[in-house]
C-alpha cells in the first residue's frame, strides 16, 4: 500500500471478484468493504450495515446496490443510504481508479480512527 497525496493506493482492481467485494481492515478503526459492480466500477463503504452492523462485504451485489447478508437491507453503494422503506446510512469512502489501481480517500478511510 502506498500513499499518493490525499489518496491511498490499496491494490489492483483485478484483485476484486466480479460482482463481489473484499475487505480492508483499518487498524484502530472501522473495516472498509471494497465493492466491484457488474460494470467494473469500484465503491467503498464502511463494512457495517446501519441496521445491525452486518458485514456488507458479504452481501449480494446487484447494479449499484448491496443486500446485507444478515437481514436483507439494501444499501446504495453510491450514497451509503438504506433503500426502500428502511432508514439509515453508512459512511462512503471516495474511490478513484488510476492505471488499474484502486485509490481511496485517505481522510475518509481514517475517519473512524480515534
Amino acid at each position, binding site marked *: 500500500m502506498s500513499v499518493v497525496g490525499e489518496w491511498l493506493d490499496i491494490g489492483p482492481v483485478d484483485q476484486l471478484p466480479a*460482482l463481489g467485494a473484499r475487505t480492508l481492515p483499518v487498524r484502530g478503526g472501522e473495516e472498509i468493504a471494497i465493492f466491484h459492480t*457488474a460494470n467494473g466500477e469500484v465503491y467503498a463503504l464502511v463494512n457495517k450495515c446501519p441496521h445491525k452492523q452486518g458485514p456488507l462485504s458479504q452481501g449480494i451485489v446487484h447494479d449499484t446496490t448491496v443486500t446485507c447478508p444478515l437481514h436483507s437491507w439494501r444499501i446504495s453503494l453510491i450514497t451509503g443510504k438504506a433503500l426502500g422503506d428502511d432508514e439509515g446510512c453508512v459512511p462512503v469512502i471516495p474511490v478513484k481508479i488510476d492505471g488499474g489501481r484502486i485509490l481511496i480517500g485517505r481522510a475518509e478511510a481514517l475517519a473512524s*480512527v480515534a
Partner: protein
Amino acid sequence: MNNKPHLIVIGNGMAGCRAVEEILERDADKFRITIFGAEPRVNYNRIMLSPLLAGEKSFDDIVINAQAWYDDNGITLVSGDQVVAIDRKIQTVTARSGRVESYDKLLLATGSDPFIIPVPGHDMQGVVTFRDMDDVGAMLRAADGGGDAVVIGGGLLGLEAAHGLSLRGMKVTVIHLMPTLMERQLDEAAGWLLKEALEGRGQTILTGADTAEIYGQGMVEGIRLKDGREIPASLVVMAVGIRPNVKLARETGLAIGRGIHVDDHLVTSDANILAVGECVEHQGQIYGLVAPIWEMCRSLADGLIAQPNGYTGSVTSTKLKVSGIDVFSAGDFSGGEGCEDIVMRDATRGVYKRVIVKEDRVIGAVLYGDTGDGNWYFDLLKKQQDITEIRDALIFGQAFASGGGASANPLDAVAALSDDAEICGCNGVSKGQVMGCIAGGAHSLDAVRSGCKASASCGSCTGLVENLLALAMGDEYAGERDNKPMCKCTSFTHEDVRRNIIEKELKEIPEVMQALHWTTPDGCASCRPALNYYLLCAWPGEFADDNQSRFVNERMHANIQKDGTYSVVPRMWGGVTNPRELRAIADVAEKYEARMVKVTGGQRLDIFGIKKEDLPAVWADLNAAGMVSGHAYAKALRTVKTCVGSEWCRFGTQDSTGLGIKTEQMTWGSWMPHKFKIAVSGCPRNCAEATIKDFGIICVDSGYELSVGGNGGIHLRGTDALCKVETEQEALDYCAAFIQLYREEARYLDRTAPWVERVGMDYIKSRIVDDTEGREALRQRFLYSQSFMQDDPWAKRADGEDYKLHQHLAEIRPLVTA
C-alpha cells in the same frame, strides 16, 4: 507571403489535419503551415484501420487528405521525419534528420501510444499493437500463413482486431481481464450478448483471463494465463488501451498530467503552443474517440482565428465496427441514486435496449442488436431534453415516441393499438382476435389463453392481455393472477421461468434474463439465487455455478453469525462420530479460538466464532481428519438424523443407523430449493423425530413407512404418509425420486411443506407411488445430478479456490500522531 506567421503542426494524424482544415476554413491566408508526420505517408483515417484489416476497405479508401490537398493549400508535409526536440526560447523544432524550423505557433497533435502490458515476452517478434498502417501490415503478413492468433484486450479496438484477423482466416482467441466484454461501454447483459455473437462466429472469448507471459523461442509460440492455461499462437495483438503521447511536451517542460494540459481553447501552459486530440487532457478528461476530437478542433480554430467559442468537454458515444453486430453505447450507464433503468429485451430478434433516465433526462443508453435509435437517444442526452411526455414510449424508439400511441396510461396505450397489431408473437395473435375472444365470453386470463392462445406460450405478453381484458370489461375485470411473478425484475412466475429454461435450453443467467425480458440489467438479490438454482437443477454437469449469485452462507460454505464471524459444521454421517473426528474438532476449536462448540438438533457439532480469513485453514484441518462439509449453511441436504436401531436398542426393528448413513451418502451435496432434512427411526416410538422432516422413514417389523412434507420451525407440520415399502433399497429409491420431484418442481425457497400443500398428496403419490417408470426416471435423474454434486466444497477451498473471498485486500495501519 513569407511574412505570414508560421504554424508548425507536429503530427500528421486525424487531429492535426482536422485542426488545420478548421483553421483554413476560417481564414486560408492567416498562416504558413508545415506538418511533420512520423509515418512515411499522407494523412489517413485511423478509425478505418479495422475495415482495412477486415479487407472491407483498401488504403486508398481510407486516405483523408491526399498529396493534392497539401499542395493546393500550400502546406509543407514533412513525412517520415519525426520531430525530436522543441526549443521554446527561440521557438524552433528539430527533426530527426537535423532539419530545424522556427515557428510562431506550434500545434502538438502527437496522439497516443498503445499500452503494452509488461509481461515476460512482450517484446518478442510476433507481438504487435493495433495502431497504425505498419501494425496492420504486420498482422496481414501473419494472417497470410493462417494459424492461431491471440488478441489481448476485449475492448473496442481488440474486438475489431479479432474480427479482422478472423475474417482473414486466422483462428482467434480474445483474452479479456474483466468479466464482460467492452465493460467501459456495455453493461453485463449487452456484453454477454456480444460474447455469444462473437463465439457464434468461431472466435474463442476468454473473460476474466489474466495474461502471465508470452512464450516462444525468439518468435511467439503462444501465451500462458495466470491460471496456467496455454494458448498457442503465432501472432499476439496487444489491444489493452492507449495512453496520451506526452514525450515531447514533457521534455520541453509543458504542464502535463495524464495528457498535455490545455485550456478551453486548447492552449498549453505556453501561450504559443497548442495541443489537440488524444494527447491532451482537458479538465481532467482525456478522449480516445473521434467525435470529441472534432469538437476540440473547432474550438481551437475559433480561438486562433475568429471569436472564441471555448471547448467545454464532450459526451461520447461508441459504436462497434464489427459488421453484422450492432452495438451502441453513450453517456453514463452505471446507474445509481435517482437513476431509473428502462429496459426492453426482444429475445427473438436478439435485441437488448437500456435507457438510463435521471430527473426526467436521458443520461445514458446501451443498445444491442437494434441501434437504429442510438443517435436519437444520444441527441436527447446531449440536449438534456425533458422526456416526461414521451417517457412511456421512450424505449420503443423515436418513431413510436413521437408518432403518437404514447401515453402515461397503459390502457390508453393498448386502446390506441390498431386491431391488427400483434399481441402474442409466439402464437401470432392480433389485438382484434384477443378482443373477439373476450367478447365471446373469455373473461379471465386462462380463458383467453385457451380460447385464442394469446400469452399461452412464453407468457411475455401476459401484461398486454390483462390490459386488454381490463379495457374490454372495465371494472368487472379485477385482475386475477394469484401466481405472483418471481420478483420485481420480471413478469414471469417461477413455473414460467423453469419451463422456459428447459424449453428454450437457456443455460446462463444473462441468457435467461434476455430471453425472458428481465426489466433490470443484472437482476436482484431475490432472482439471482433462484435463477442460479434453476439452471443448476436443469443442467447438471453443464451449468457453471455463479458464486456471486449465491447468498453469503453458500458462497462461504459456512454460516454467518450476527457478529460477522462464521460457524462450521462438519458432516457426521447418520449422526455417528468417532474419537479421531472429535479430536480434530477439539483441536480446531482451540487452534482457531472458537468461542463455542455446540451439539446441533441434527446430531452434529457446530464450531462457532471462526473468522472469515481462517475458514480455509479450518477446513484443511477437518479434511485431514476425513471430514467433509456438512452443508449446514445450504439450501441442500442437511442431515439424516437416526436413532441407534436394531444394533443396540431393545425395541429396534431394523438397522435405522445403517439406513440413515446410506441415505446420507446417497443424498449429500445435492442443491435444492430450500434446506432438506431426513430422519430414520428404528421403531414407531420415533426417537429420531422422523415425522417432522422433509422425508421421514419409520422402521417397522414388516418394512419401512415413508412420509413426506414435515418440518419444525414457525409452522410446525407433521409429515403426510407416502407409502410403505418392504426393503431398504426401496426406501432409498423412493427417497431419491421424491427429492428429485421436489428439486424439479418446487419454487426456490419453498420447503417441502408448502409445496406438498400446494400440489396435494394425491399428486405426489401419483408421481412417486403409482407411476413406477416415472419414479425410476426421477431417481435416475437424481443420481445423474449427484454424480456432479458430490465433491467436498471445503477441500477445493482449502486447496486455494476462491482465496480472494477469504483474504483481506490490504490493511491500513495509520501512523500514530503524537
